[in-house]
Protein backbone atom coordinates (compact mmCIF):
# COMPACT_ATOMS: atom_id res chain seq x y z
CA UNK A 1 0.00 0.00 0.00
CA UNK A 2 1.17 3.47 -0.62
CA UNK A 3 0.96 4.77 2.90
CA UNK A 4 2.92 1.79 4.17
CA UNK A 5 5.64 2.42 1.65
CA UNK A 6 5.65 6.07 2.61
CA UNK A 7 5.91 5.18 6.27
CA UNK A 8 8.71 2.75 5.42
CA UNK A 9 10.50 5.48 3.47
CA UNK A 10 9.99 7.96 6.23
CA UNK A 11 11.44 5.66 8.93
CA UNK A 12 14.41 4.90 6.72
CA UNK A 13 15.04 8.61 6.31
CA UNK A 14 14.50 9.22 10.00
CA UNK A 15 16.88 6.43 10.97
CA UNK A 16 19.42 7.75 8.54
CA UNK A 17 19.10 11.20 10.02
CA UNK A 18 19.48 9.88 13.58
CA UNK A 19 22.56 7.93 12.59
CA UNK A 20 24.05 11.07 11.11
CA UNK A 21 23.29 13.06 14.26
CA UNK A 22 24.84 10.33 16.37
CA UNK A 23 27.98 10.21 14.25
CA UNK A 24 28.25 13.97 14.58
CA UNK A 25 27.91 13.82 18.37
CA UNK A 26 30.56 11.12 18.53
CA UNK A 27 32.90 13.12 16.33
CA UNK A 28 32.61 16.02 18.78
CA UNK A 29 33.15 13.65 21.70
CA UNK A 30 36.27 12.24 20.09
CA UNK A 31 37.97 15.64 20.23
CA UNK A 32 38.70 14.84 23.86
CA UNK A 33 40.30 11.68 25.24
CA UNK A 34 38.25 8.51 24.90
CA UNK A 35 38.59 5.81 27.55
CA UNK A 36 40.66 2.90 26.34
CA UNK A 37 38.52 0.36 28.16
CA UNK A 38 35.00 0.81 29.51
CA UNK A 39 33.44 -1.75 31.79
CA UNK A 40 29.75 -1.96 32.50
CA UNK A 41 28.12 -3.37 35.61
CA UNK A 42 24.72 -4.17 34.18
CA UNK A 43 22.42 -3.83 37.15
CA UNK A 44 18.69 -3.24 37.25
CA UNK A 45 17.14 -5.69 34.81
CA UNK A 46 14.66 -7.15 37.21
CA UNK A 47 13.67 -3.76 38.56
CA UNK A 48 13.03 -2.68 34.97
CA UNK A 49 10.73 -5.67 34.39
CA UNK A 50 8.83 -4.91 37.57
CA UNK A 51 8.55 -1.24 36.67
CA UNK A 52 7.03 -2.00 33.29
CA UNK A 53 5.02 -5.03 34.45
CA UNK A 54 6.73 -7.39 32.07
CA UNK A 55 5.87 -11.05 32.44
CA UNK A 56 8.40 -13.83 32.71
CA UNK A 57 11.48 -14.32 34.85
CA UNK A 58 13.83 -13.35 32.07
CA UNK A 59 11.88 -10.41 30.69
CA UNK A 60 14.16 -7.88 32.34
CA UNK A 61 17.23 -9.70 31.14
CA UNK A 62 15.92 -9.82 27.57
CA UNK A 63 15.45 -6.08 27.70
CA UNK A 64 18.97 -5.92 29.05
CA UNK A 65 20.30 -7.78 26.04
CA UNK A 66 18.74 -5.26 23.69
CA UNK A 67 20.54 -2.57 25.62
CA UNK A 68 23.80 -4.53 25.23
CA UNK A 69 23.51 -4.51 21.45
CA UNK A 70 22.95 -0.75 21.35
CA UNK A 71 25.74 0.05 23.76
CA UNK A 72 28.20 -2.12 21.88
CA UNK A 73 27.25 -0.40 18.67
CA UNK A 74 27.78 3.03 20.20
CA UNK A 75 31.11 2.03 21.70
CA UNK A 76 32.23 0.73 18.36
CA UNK A 77 31.20 3.96 16.63
CA UNK A 78 32.99 6.05 19.24
CA UNK A 79 36.09 3.94 18.82
CA UNK A 80 36.51 2.40 22.25
CA UNK A 81 38.81 -0.61 21.75
CA UNK A 82 37.77 -2.73 24.79
CA UNK A 83 34.44 -3.17 26.51
CA UNK A 84 33.75 -5.44 29.46
CA UNK A 85 30.30 -6.55 30.50
CA UNK A 86 29.60 -7.99 33.92
CA UNK A 87 26.98 -10.52 32.93
CA UNK A 88 26.87 -12.95 35.83
CA UNK A 89 28.86 -13.00 39.02
CA UNK A 90 30.18 -15.98 40.93
CA UNK A 91 28.04 -14.95 43.88
CA UNK A 92 24.93 -14.67 41.72
CA UNK A 93 24.67 -18.45 41.83
CA UNK A 94 23.23 -17.88 45.29
CA UNK A 95 20.02 -16.67 43.68
CA UNK A 96 16.89 -18.77 43.17
CA UNK A 97 17.66 -21.81 40.98
CA UNK A 98 14.82 -20.93 38.58
CA UNK A 99 16.21 -17.50 38.01
CA UNK A 100 19.75 -18.80 37.53
CA UNK A 101 18.48 -21.38 35.04
CA UNK A 102 16.49 -18.72 33.22
CA UNK A 103 19.52 -16.48 32.87
CA UNK A 104 21.72 -19.35 31.70
CA UNK A 105 19.17 -20.38 29.07
CA UNK A 106 18.86 -16.82 27.86
CA UNK A 107 22.63 -16.55 27.60
CA UNK A 108 22.77 -19.76 25.62
CA UNK A 109 20.10 -18.49 23.25
CA UNK A 110 21.87 -15.19 22.70
CA UNK A 111 25.27 -16.78 22.28
CA UNK A 112 23.92 -19.12 19.61
CA UNK A 113 22.31 -16.14 17.90
CA UNK A 114 25.61 -14.30 17.96
CA UNK A 115 27.46 -17.32 16.56
CA UNK A 116 25.04 -17.36 13.61
CA UNK A 117 25.58 -13.68 13.02
CA UNK A 118 29.33 -14.10 13.24
CA UNK A 119 29.30 -16.90 10.71
CA UNK A 120 27.11 -14.94 8.32
CA UNK A 121 29.44 -11.98 8.62
CA UNK A 122 27.02 -9.67 10.39
CA UNK A 123 28.99 -9.13 13.54
CA UNK A 124 30.93 -6.03 12.54
CA UNK A 125 34.31 -7.55 13.27
CA UNK A 126 33.54 -7.89 16.98
CA UNK A 127 35.80 -10.15 18.99
CA UNK A 128 34.10 -11.82 21.95
CA UNK A 129 35.83 -13.51 24.84
CA UNK A 130 34.42 -15.00 28.01
CA UNK A 131 36.21 -14.75 31.31
CA UNK A 132 35.33 -16.31 34.60
CA UNK A 133 35.00 -19.74 36.09
CA UNK A 134 33.55 -21.37 32.98
CA UNK A 135 33.54 -24.76 34.71
CA UNK A 136 30.55 -23.57 36.74
CA UNK A 137 28.46 -23.36 33.57
CA UNK A 138 26.50 -26.25 32.16
CA UNK A 139 28.09 -28.19 29.31
CA UNK A 140 26.01 -26.72 26.50
CA UNK A 141 26.63 -23.16 27.57
CA UNK A 142 30.32 -23.76 28.05
CA UNK A 143 30.60 -25.34 24.61
CA UNK A 144 28.67 -22.47 23.01
CA UNK A 145 30.90 -19.91 24.70
CA UNK A 146 34.04 -21.71 23.47
CA UNK A 147 32.58 -21.85 20.00
CA UNK A 148 31.80 -18.14 19.93
CA UNK A 149 35.32 -17.37 21.08
CA UNK A 150 36.75 -19.54 18.30
CA UNK A 151 34.53 -18.07 15.63
CA UNK A 152 35.42 -14.48 16.50
CA UNK A 153 39.07 -15.08 17.27
CA UNK A 154 40.36 -13.57 14.07
CA UNK A 155 38.26 -10.41 14.34
CA UNK A 156 40.16 -7.22 15.04
CA UNK A 157 37.37 -4.80 15.84
CA UNK A 158 35.93 -3.98 19.24
CA UNK A 159 36.90 -6.59 21.85
CA UNK A 160 33.98 -7.49 24.04
CA UNK A 161 34.81 -9.26 27.27
CA UNK A 162 31.86 -11.00 28.87
CA UNK A 163 32.35 -11.84 32.53
CA UNK A 164 30.38 -14.93 33.42
CA UNK A 165 30.68 -16.73 36.76
CA UNK A 166 33.28 -14.12 37.56
CA UNK A 167 34.38 -12.51 40.78
CA UNK A 168 37.64 -10.88 41.67
CA UNK A 169 38.10 -12.99 44.79
CA UNK A 170 37.84 -16.11 42.71
CA UNK A 171 40.14 -14.66 40.08
CA UNK A 172 42.79 -13.82 42.65
CA UNK A 173 42.57 -17.27 44.26
CA UNK A 174 43.15 -19.01 40.98
CA UNK A 175 45.89 -16.53 40.03
CA UNK A 176 47.69 -17.29 43.29
CA UNK A 177 47.30 -21.03 42.74
CA UNK A 178 48.65 -20.72 39.25
CA UNK A 179 51.61 -18.55 40.24
CA UNK A 180 52.40 -20.86 43.15
CA UNK A 181 52.47 -23.80 40.80
CA UNK A 182 54.77 -21.98 38.44
CA UNK A 183 57.14 -20.66 41.07
CA UNK A 184 57.33 -23.57 43.44
CA UNK A 185 58.91 -25.96 41.07
CA UNK A 186 62.21 -24.12 41.20
CA UNK A 187 63.78 -26.50 43.70
CA UNK A 188 65.88 -24.87 46.38
CA UNK A 189 66.18 -21.47 44.81
CA UNK A 190 64.64 -18.65 46.89
CA UNK A 191 61.06 -17.83 46.10
CA UNK A 192 60.72 -14.58 44.19
CA UNK A 193 57.19 -13.53 43.44
CA UNK A 194 56.44 -10.18 41.85
CA UNK A 195 53.24 -8.33 41.03
CA UNK A 196 53.66 -9.14 37.36
CA UNK A 197 53.76 -12.87 38.13
CA UNK A 198 50.38 -12.69 39.80
CA UNK A 199 48.89 -10.41 37.17
CA UNK A 200 49.97 -12.71 34.37
CA UNK A 201 47.85 -15.48 35.83
CA UNK A 202 44.68 -13.45 36.04
CA UNK A 203 41.82 -13.99 33.61
CA UNK A 204 42.10 -10.41 32.47
CA UNK A 205 45.84 -10.42 31.83
CA UNK A 206 45.34 -9.75 28.13
CA UNK A 207 43.38 -6.56 28.76
CA UNK A 208 44.43 -3.09 29.87
CA UNK A 209 42.84 -1.85 33.08
CA UNK A 210 39.45 -0.20 32.66
CA UNK A 211 39.63 3.57 32.47
CA UNK A 212 35.93 3.99 33.18
CA UNK A 213 33.47 1.82 35.07
CA UNK A 214 29.80 2.54 34.49
CA UNK A 215 27.37 1.03 36.95
CA UNK A 216 23.66 1.28 36.28
CA UNK A 217 20.91 0.84 38.82
CA UNK A 218 22.01 3.56 41.20
CA UNK A 219 24.03 1.35 43.53
CA UNK A 220 27.44 2.58 44.58
CA UNK A 221 29.49 -0.56 45.00
CA UNK A 222 31.80 -2.79 43.02
CA UNK A 223 30.13 -6.15 43.78
CA UNK A 224 33.38 -8.08 43.54
CA UNK A 225 33.87 -7.02 39.95
CA UNK A 226 37.40 -6.28 38.85
CA UNK A 227 38.34 -4.65 42.13
CA UNK A 228 41.98 -5.39 41.26
CA UNK A 229 41.87 -3.84 37.82
CA UNK A 230 39.72 -0.84 38.67
CA UNK A 231 41.87 0.57 41.44
CA UNK A 232 42.49 3.76 39.51
CA UNK A 233 39.44 3.76 37.25
CA UNK A 234 36.81 6.42 37.31
CA UNK A 235 33.67 4.98 38.90
CA UNK A 236 30.56 6.39 37.33
CA UNK A 237 27.18 5.43 38.74
CA UNK A 238 23.94 6.26 37.07
CA UNK A 239 20.46 5.82 38.49
CA UNK A 240 19.15 4.60 35.15
CA UNK A 241 18.48 0.87 35.06
CA UNK A 242 20.52 -1.16 32.59
CA UNK A 243 17.79 -1.57 29.96
CA UNK A 244 17.25 2.21 30.17
CA UNK A 245 20.87 3.06 29.49
CA UNK A 246 21.01 5.02 26.29
CA UNK A 247 23.13 7.23 24.14
CA UNK A 248 23.00 10.25 26.38
CA UNK A 249 24.01 8.31 29.50
CA UNK A 250 27.05 7.01 27.68
CA UNK A 251 27.94 10.44 26.32
CA UNK A 252 27.55 11.95 29.78
CA UNK A 253 29.78 9.27 31.34
CA UNK A 254 32.49 9.89 28.75
CA UNK A 255 32.22 13.67 29.21
CA UNK A 256 32.72 13.17 32.94
CA UNK A 257 35.72 11.01 32.18
CA UNK A 258 37.17 13.75 29.99
CA UNK A 259 36.55 16.34 32.66
CA UNK A 260 38.43 14.27 35.24
CA UNK A 261 41.30 13.53 32.89
CA UNK A 262 42.96 16.90 33.30
CA UNK A 263 42.95 16.63 37.05
CA UNK A 264 44.06 13.01 36.95
CA UNK A 265 46.98 13.76 34.70
CA UNK A 266 48.11 16.56 37.02
CA UNK A 267 47.84 14.18 39.94
CA UNK A 268 49.69 11.42 38.16
CA UNK A 269 52.56 13.81 37.55
CA UNK A 270 52.55 14.65 41.25
CA UNK A 271 52.28 11.06 42.40
Amino acid sequence: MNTREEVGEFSKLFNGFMTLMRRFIFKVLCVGPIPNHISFIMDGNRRFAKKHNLQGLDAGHRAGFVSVTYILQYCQEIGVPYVTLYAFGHDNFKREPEEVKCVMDLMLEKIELTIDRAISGNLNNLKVIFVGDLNMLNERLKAAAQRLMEVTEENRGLMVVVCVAYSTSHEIVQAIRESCLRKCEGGDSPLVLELSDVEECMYTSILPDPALVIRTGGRDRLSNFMTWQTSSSLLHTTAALWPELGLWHLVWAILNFQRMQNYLQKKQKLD
Partner: protein
Amino acid sequence: MMSLRVPAPSSFNLQRFNEKRWRLGRDCFLSFSPSCVENRTGLIAVRAAKSEMTAFTAAEEETLPEGLQPELMPKHVAVIMDGNGRWAKNQGLQPWDGHRAGVEALREIVELCGKWGIQVLTVFAFSTDNWIRPKIEIDFLLSLFERTLKSELETLAKNNVRISIIGDSSKLPKSLLKVINEVEEVTKNNTRLQLIVAVGYSGKYDVLQACRGIAQRVKDGEIDVEEIDEELIEQELETNVTVFPYPDLLIRTSGELRVSNFLLWQLAYTELFFAQELWPDFGRNGFVEALMSFQQRQRRFGGRKS
Protein backbone atom coordinates in the same frame (compact mmCIF):
# COMPACT_ATOMS: atom_id res chain seq x y z
CA MET B 1 47.74 11.73 46.91
CA MET B 2 47.14 10.77 50.45
CA SER B 3 48.53 12.80 53.21
CA LEU B 4 49.57 11.15 56.39
CA ARG B 5 46.93 11.25 58.99
CA VAL B 6 47.73 10.78 62.58
CA PRO B 7 45.41 8.58 64.54
CA ALA B 8 44.72 10.73 67.49
CA PRO B 9 41.41 10.42 69.22
CA SER B 10 41.42 12.79 72.07
CA SER B 11 38.66 13.45 74.49
CA PHE B 12 35.48 11.72 73.47
CA ASN B 13 33.58 14.52 74.92
CA LEU B 14 32.52 17.04 72.33
CA GLN B 15 30.89 19.16 74.96
CA ARG B 16 34.33 20.47 75.69
CA PHE B 17 34.11 22.39 72.52
CA ASN B 18 35.09 25.96 73.00
CA GLU B 19 36.28 28.77 70.88
CA LYS B 20 39.97 27.91 71.01
CA ARG B 21 41.42 28.11 67.58
CA TRP B 22 43.92 25.86 66.12
CA ARG B 23 47.24 27.43 65.44
CA LEU B 24 48.67 27.25 62.05
CA GLY B 25 52.09 28.59 62.74
CA ARG B 26 54.94 26.19 62.29
CA ASP B 27 56.12 26.69 65.86
CA CYS B 28 53.11 24.78 67.06
CA PHE B 29 53.71 21.48 65.40
CA LEU B 30 55.28 20.02 68.48
CA SER B 31 52.11 19.97 70.45
CA PHE B 32 48.64 18.87 69.58
CA SER B 33 46.96 20.46 72.50
CA PRO B 34 46.58 23.91 71.07
CA SER B 35 45.84 26.77 73.35
CA CYS B 36 44.58 30.02 71.96
CA VAL B 37 46.10 30.64 68.61
CA GLU B 38 45.82 33.30 66.04
CA ASN B 39 43.46 32.68 63.29
CA ARG B 40 45.37 33.52 60.17
CA THR B 41 42.70 33.90 57.62
CA GLY B 42 39.52 33.84 59.59
CA LEU B 43 38.24 31.03 57.46
CA ILE B 44 39.72 28.17 59.37
CA ALA B 45 37.30 25.73 60.88
CA VAL B 46 37.30 25.91 64.63
CA ARG B 47 38.11 22.68 66.39
CA ALA B 48 37.74 21.65 70.00
CA ALA B 49 40.67 22.13 72.31
CA LYS B 50 42.12 18.84 73.23
CA SER B 51 44.23 19.70 76.18
CA GLU B 52 42.23 17.86 78.78
CA MET B 53 41.80 14.21 78.04
CA THR B 54 39.11 12.43 79.90
CA ALA B 55 38.43 8.78 79.91
CA PHE B 56 35.37 7.83 78.02
CA THR B 57 32.46 6.64 80.06
CA ALA B 58 29.17 5.15 79.04
CA ALA B 59 27.34 8.06 80.60
CA GLU B 60 28.86 10.43 78.08
CA GLU B 61 27.76 8.33 75.13
CA GLU B 62 26.09 10.57 72.67
CA THR B 63 22.79 9.47 71.26
CA LEU B 64 22.73 9.01 67.53
CA PRO B 65 21.54 11.96 65.47
CA GLU B 66 17.98 11.83 64.27
CA GLY B 67 17.49 9.57 61.33
CA LEU B 68 20.26 7.12 62.14
CA GLN B 69 19.29 3.72 63.47
CA PRO B 70 21.66 1.99 65.86
CA GLU B 71 21.05 -1.50 64.48
CA LEU B 72 22.02 -0.41 60.97
CA MET B 73 25.33 1.19 61.88
CA PRO B 74 28.24 -0.20 59.90
CA LYS B 75 30.74 -2.26 61.86
CA HIS B 76 33.74 -1.23 59.80
CA VAL B 77 34.15 2.11 58.08
CA ALA B 78 37.07 2.88 55.77
CA VAL B 79 38.04 6.41 54.84
CA ILE B 80 40.21 7.86 52.09
CA MET B 81 41.12 11.25 53.46
CA ASP B 82 41.66 13.22 50.28
CA GLY B 83 41.91 16.94 49.75
CA ASN B 84 44.32 18.39 52.31
CA GLY B 85 46.56 19.93 49.70
CA ARG B 86 43.68 21.51 47.84
CA TRP B 87 42.14 22.76 51.07
CA ALA B 88 45.38 24.46 52.04
CA LYS B 89 45.68 26.01 48.58
CA ASN B 90 42.10 27.31 48.73
CA GLN B 91 42.82 28.94 52.08
CA GLY B 92 46.11 30.39 50.83
CA LEU B 93 48.15 28.19 53.18
CA GLN B 94 51.05 25.79 52.85
CA PRO B 95 50.43 22.09 52.20
CA TRP B 96 51.57 21.06 55.67
CA ASP B 97 48.89 23.29 57.17
CA GLY B 98 46.42 21.26 55.20
CA HIS B 99 47.80 18.06 56.68
CA ARG B 100 47.45 19.44 60.17
CA ALA B 101 43.88 20.46 59.46
CA GLY B 102 43.37 16.91 58.31
CA VAL B 103 44.58 15.60 61.65
CA GLU B 104 41.93 17.60 63.44
CA ALA B 105 39.27 16.31 61.09
CA LEU B 106 40.41 12.78 61.79
CA ARG B 107 40.18 13.35 65.53
CA GLU B 108 36.56 14.33 65.17
CA ILE B 109 35.68 11.30 63.11
CA VAL B 110 37.47 8.95 65.48
CA GLU B 111 35.54 10.41 68.39
CA LEU B 112 32.26 9.98 66.57
CA CYS B 113 33.07 6.38 65.70
CA GLY B 114 33.82 5.66 69.30
CA LYS B 115 30.55 7.20 70.42
CA TRP B 116 28.31 5.69 67.82
CA GLY B 117 29.40 2.10 68.13
CA ILE B 118 31.45 1.68 64.99
CA GLN B 119 33.97 -0.99 65.82
CA VAL B 120 36.68 -0.59 63.23
CA LEU B 121 37.85 2.52 61.41
CA THR B 122 40.47 2.17 58.70
CA VAL B 123 42.12 5.28 57.34
CA PHE B 124 44.28 5.57 54.28
CA ALA B 125 47.15 7.69 55.47
CA PHE B 126 49.94 7.06 53.05
CA SER B 127 49.93 5.00 49.89
CA THR B 128 52.79 3.19 48.18
CA ASP B 129 52.16 5.59 45.29
CA ASN B 130 52.86 8.57 47.55
CA TRP B 131 56.56 7.79 47.91
CA ILE B 132 57.07 9.77 44.70
CA ARG B 133 56.12 13.00 46.45
CA PRO B 134 58.82 15.56 47.28
CA LYS B 135 61.12 14.38 50.05
CA ILE B 136 60.43 17.42 52.19
CA GLU B 137 56.72 16.64 52.24
CA ILE B 138 57.29 12.96 53.01
CA ASP B 139 59.71 13.80 55.83
CA PHE B 140 57.22 16.23 57.27
CA LEU B 141 54.38 13.75 57.11
CA LEU B 142 56.31 10.92 58.71
CA SER B 143 57.63 13.10 61.49
CA LEU B 144 54.14 14.51 62.05
CA PHE B 145 52.87 10.97 62.35
CA GLU B 146 55.59 10.05 64.82
CA ARG B 147 55.11 13.10 67.01
CA THR B 148 51.37 12.74 67.16
CA LEU B 149 51.52 9.04 67.96
CA LYS B 150 53.85 9.78 70.85
CA SER B 151 51.75 12.60 72.20
CA GLU B 152 48.44 10.80 71.86
CA LEU B 153 49.46 7.42 73.26
CA GLU B 154 48.13 8.13 76.72
CA THR B 155 44.77 9.34 75.41
CA LEU B 156 44.37 6.29 73.26
CA ALA B 157 45.07 4.01 76.16
CA LYS B 158 42.58 5.82 78.34
CA ASN B 159 39.89 5.83 75.70
CA ASN B 160 40.13 2.11 75.08
CA VAL B 161 41.18 2.51 71.46
CA ARG B 162 43.34 -0.06 69.80
CA ILE B 163 45.73 1.05 67.12
CA SER B 164 47.05 -1.12 64.34
CA ILE B 165 49.30 -0.02 61.53
CA ILE B 166 49.26 -1.86 58.23
CA GLY B 167 51.41 -1.42 55.19
CA ASP B 168 54.93 -1.85 53.93
CA SER B 169 57.06 -0.73 56.84
CA SER B 170 60.37 -1.37 55.12
CA LYS B 171 60.75 2.23 53.97
CA LEU B 172 59.73 3.89 57.21
CA PRO B 173 62.39 5.46 59.45
CA LYS B 174 63.52 3.38 62.44
CA SER B 175 62.35 5.90 65.03
CA LEU B 176 58.84 5.78 63.61
CA LEU B 177 58.85 1.99 63.59
CA LYS B 178 59.84 1.98 67.23
CA VAL B 179 56.96 4.30 68.16
CA ILE B 180 54.55 2.22 66.10
CA ASN B 181 55.56 -0.97 67.86
CA GLU B 182 55.21 0.69 71.22
CA VAL B 183 51.76 2.09 70.46
CA GLU B 184 50.51 -1.21 69.06
CA GLU B 185 51.83 -3.08 72.11
CA VAL B 186 50.35 -0.70 74.66
CA THR B 187 46.91 -0.58 73.04
CA LYS B 188 46.61 -4.15 71.90
CA ASN B 189 44.03 -5.17 74.48
CA ASN B 190 41.70 -2.24 73.99
CA THR B 191 38.23 -3.00 72.78
CA ARG B 192 36.13 0.08 72.20
CA LEU B 193 37.34 1.01 68.73
CA GLN B 194 40.05 -0.37 66.52
CA LEU B 195 41.77 2.28 64.47
CA ILE B 196 43.73 0.86 61.58
CA VAL B 197 46.09 3.26 59.89
CA ALA B 198 47.34 2.29 56.47
CA VAL B 199 50.84 3.65 55.95
CA GLY B 200 52.87 2.64 52.94
CA TYR B 201 49.91 0.51 51.96
CA SER B 202 48.20 -0.46 48.76
CA GLY B 203 45.63 -3.10 48.01
CA LYS B 204 47.80 -4.79 45.40
CA TYR B 205 50.77 -4.84 47.75
CA ASP B 206 48.60 -6.49 50.41
CA VAL B 207 47.44 -9.25 48.08
CA LEU B 208 50.97 -9.71 46.77
CA GLN B 209 52.45 -10.13 50.24
CA ALA B 210 49.68 -12.59 51.10
CA CYS B 211 50.51 -14.43 47.91
CA ARG B 212 54.20 -14.53 48.80
CA GLY B 213 53.38 -15.87 52.27
CA ILE B 214 51.19 -18.56 50.80
CA ALA B 215 53.71 -19.47 48.11
CA GLN B 216 56.40 -19.88 50.73
CA ARG B 217 54.13 -22.16 52.74
CA VAL B 218 53.41 -24.22 49.64
CA LYS B 219 57.10 -24.45 48.87
CA ASP B 220 57.84 -25.55 52.42
CA GLY B 221 55.26 -28.27 52.04
CA GLU B 222 53.03 -26.86 54.76
CA ILE B 223 49.99 -26.60 52.54
CA ASP B 224 48.89 -27.96 49.20
CA VAL B 225 48.11 -25.78 46.19
CA GLU B 226 44.54 -27.10 46.15
CA GLU B 227 44.02 -25.89 49.71
CA ILE B 228 44.46 -22.28 48.65
CA ASP B 229 41.07 -20.65 48.95
CA GLU B 230 39.48 -17.33 49.88
CA GLU B 231 39.68 -17.97 53.61
CA LEU B 232 43.37 -18.69 53.50
CA ILE B 233 44.04 -15.48 51.62
CA GLU B 234 41.93 -13.53 54.07
CA GLN B 235 44.06 -14.85 56.91
CA GLU B 236 47.26 -13.81 55.17
CA LEU B 237 46.18 -10.28 54.31
CA GLU B 238 47.36 -7.47 56.56
CA THR B 239 43.79 -6.79 57.63
CA ASN B 240 43.89 -9.98 59.66
CA VAL B 241 44.57 -7.69 62.63
CA THR B 242 40.82 -7.30 62.95
CA VAL B 243 37.84 -9.63 63.12
CA PHE B 244 35.96 -7.43 60.62
CA PRO B 245 38.34 -7.11 57.69
CA TYR B 246 35.63 -6.18 55.20
CA PRO B 247 34.55 -2.55 55.38
CA ASP B 248 30.81 -2.00 55.22
CA LEU B 249 31.26 1.58 54.06
CA LEU B 250 34.04 3.38 52.24
CA ILE B 251 34.03 7.17 52.30
CA ARG B 252 36.19 9.19 49.95
CA THR B 253 36.29 12.95 50.24
CA SER B 254 37.15 15.70 47.76
CA GLY B 255 34.86 14.44 45.02
CA GLU B 256 37.28 11.99 43.42
CA LEU B 257 35.41 8.96 42.11
CA ARG B 258 38.00 6.27 42.49
CA VAL B 259 39.42 3.77 44.95
CA SER B 260 43.08 4.50 44.20
CA ASN B 261 44.48 1.12 45.18
CA PHE B 262 43.12 1.09 48.71
CA LEU B 263 41.79 -2.17 50.12
CA LEU B 264 41.23 -4.18 47.01
CA TRP B 265 40.20 -7.66 48.16
CA GLN B 266 38.26 -6.32 51.11
CA LEU B 267 36.15 -3.90 49.07
CA ALA B 268 34.22 -6.61 47.23
CA TYR B 269 30.82 -5.69 48.62
CA THR B 270 31.57 -2.44 50.36
CA GLU B 271 29.15 0.40 49.87
CA LEU B 272 30.97 3.38 48.41
CA PHE B 273 30.20 6.95 49.35
CA PHE B 274 31.84 9.85 47.57
CA ALA B 275 31.72 13.16 49.40
CA GLN B 276 32.31 16.44 47.63
CA GLU B 277 33.96 18.22 50.57
CA LEU B 278 37.67 18.26 51.08
CA TRP B 279 38.85 16.21 54.03
CA PRO B 280 39.49 19.05 56.52
CA ASP B 281 35.91 20.21 55.93
CA PHE B 282 34.40 16.77 56.26
CA GLY B 283 33.21 16.88 59.79
CA ARG B 284 30.28 15.51 61.66
CA ASN B 285 27.73 16.63 59.07
CA GLY B 286 29.49 14.89 56.23
CA PHE B 287 29.87 11.76 58.30
CA VAL B 288 26.19 11.72 59.24
CA GLU B 289 25.26 12.12 55.59
CA ALA B 290 27.46 9.19 54.65
CA LEU B 291 25.96 7.02 57.38
CA MET B 292 22.41 7.95 56.38
CA SER B 293 23.14 7.04 52.81
CA PHE B 294 24.59 3.73 53.96
CA GLN B 295 21.57 2.89 56.11
CA GLN B 296 19.23 3.38 53.20
CA ARG B 297 21.04 0.95 50.98
CA GLN B 298 19.92 -2.59 50.36
CA ARG B 299 22.89 -4.94 50.51
CA ARG B 300 22.52 -8.21 48.66
CA PHE B 301 26.10 -9.59 48.34
CA GLY B 302 25.28 -11.09 44.96
CA GLY B 303 22.08 -12.75 46.06
CA ARG B 304 18.57 -11.45 45.72
CA LYS B 305 16.11 -10.18 48.30
CA SER B 306 12.69 -11.35 47.22
